[in-house]
């Protein structure tokens, strides 16, 4: 009798082992929808979520490159040749970006704002207008501004080129996600996910299991692969389907190659994992732009886990990424590449 009762009890406990839900907060910030889940009851999570939201909204005000953002004001002054004093939080972000620009061999280029503007991708909603002319692109290429053109003189920064316009679009989201995770940790949160419009960082686990992240299939509806991770780790993807427009039957996307001035065409989507969300953010862009040369840039940026969907040919993954991947709706043809 006792044995039968024990069996029933075990079965009941198994049936009732529903996964914990966590406490969730969604809001618009950084030009996208931010979704944070904390694996803690509301009485512990609410204050942490509120402070993380405030941190992200503050980040948005600071790093917006256009309109009334703090960075937009600085850009205006730099373009006019004025020396500017940078607040420490902006200066430290720029130092970090400069290091990443160097490691990426210039493929992550935060001084690319004027080129982004030429293509119209600086607007939340791009107007229906043609792509820029070859001549306009050539003017930008001749100047080729980079963060090296932002130099310190007598405690102030000056720009050596009027074409330099800082646009931290491929970096600020990562910095912001790092900051939100730090806020959560200060509140004693050990398990959480901060998802800023599809790019994210996780801390700890989802209850008893690892976090399950679906990576969108860039070539059709559905999910290409599931990545199962426990934190701290960031998952960032750059895809040619995120922002684009068509003009006279040709498609142009927003991931611009600073070497040619045109959208980078050899890759469809590229996903990287790294603990530092800012590095993951910059690397996802740089490796996308690198096209077939991505292993070289991955090596120089210290990125080990990569999955690339090239414009043609099988999916490419590194051995480090392979350890986290489960193919989902269909297993694609793939090959393993060591960076």
């Amino acid at each position, binding site marked *: 009798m006792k044995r*039968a009762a024990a069996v029933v009890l075990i079965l009941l406990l198994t*049936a009732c082992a529903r996964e914990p839900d966590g406490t969730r907060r969604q809001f618009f910030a950084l030009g996208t929808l931010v979704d944070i889940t904390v694996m803690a009851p509301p009485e512990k999570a609410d204050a942490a979520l509120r402070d993380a939201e405030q941190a992200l909204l503050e980040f948005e005000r600071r790093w917006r490159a256009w309109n009334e953002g703090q960075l937009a004001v600085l850009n205006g002054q730099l373009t006019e040749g004025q020396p500017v004093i940078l607040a420490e939080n902006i200066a430290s972000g720029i130092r970090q970006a400069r290091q990443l620009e160097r490691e990426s061999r210039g493929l992550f280029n935060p001084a690319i704002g004027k080129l982004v503007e030429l293509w119209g991708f600086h607007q939340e909603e791009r107007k229906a207008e043609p792509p820029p002319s070859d001549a306009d692109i050539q003017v930008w290429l001749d100047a080729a501004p980079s963060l090296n053109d932002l130099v310190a003189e007598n405690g102030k920064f000056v720009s050596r080129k009027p074409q330099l316009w800082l646009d931290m679009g491929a970096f600020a989201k990562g910095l912001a996600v790092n900051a939100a995770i730090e806020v959560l940790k200060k509140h004693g949160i050990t398990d959480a996910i901060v998802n800023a419009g599809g790019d994210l960082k996780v801390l700890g686990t989802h209850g008893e299991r690892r976090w399950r*992240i679906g990576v969108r299939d860039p070539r059709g509806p559905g999910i290409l692969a599931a990545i199962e991770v426990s934190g701290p780790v960031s998952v960032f*993807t750059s895809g040619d389907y995120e922002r684009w427009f068509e003009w006279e039957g040709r498609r142009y996307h927003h991931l611009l190659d600073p070497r040619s001035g045109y959208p980078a065409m050899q890759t469809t989507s590229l996903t990287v994992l790294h603990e530092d969300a800012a590095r993951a953010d910059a690397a996802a862009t740089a490796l996308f732009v690198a096209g077939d040369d991505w292993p070289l840039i991955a090596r120089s940026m210290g990125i080990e886990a990569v999955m690339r969907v090239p414009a043609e040919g099988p999916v490419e993954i590194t051995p480090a990424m392979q350890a986290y991947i489960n193919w989902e709706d269909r297993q694609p043809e793939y090959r393993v590449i060591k960076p």
Partner: protein
Amino acid sequence: MIRAGDILIIIFGAFAVGFSWFAIFNPSETASVQIVQADATAKNYPAWRDEILNISGPLGETRIEIHDGKARFLASPCANKVCIRAGWLAHAGEAAACLPNRISLALLGGDARFDAVNF
């Protein structure tokens, strides 16, 4: 040796386990559509009730359709219609947003395959 009391307990247990699984994991009981507006107000609608919702945003009204447990952006005043091109959301955990009109749409439920979708 199994006695009559054991058999009764096992039969009772089987029913209790079955009921628990049904009550906790049945997705049709838990699935809902969550809509978040610009002011971060989140509102949940049952996914089983077919309806068309008009949601206000800074650009105007966005229409969202819920049908047969799925949801989609039906019409939106934004220029590029990225939200409409996202099509039907059919599985828990899937989400789409109209960023210009600051409205997001997500399917919630007990059968979510993923904690987030990376794109």
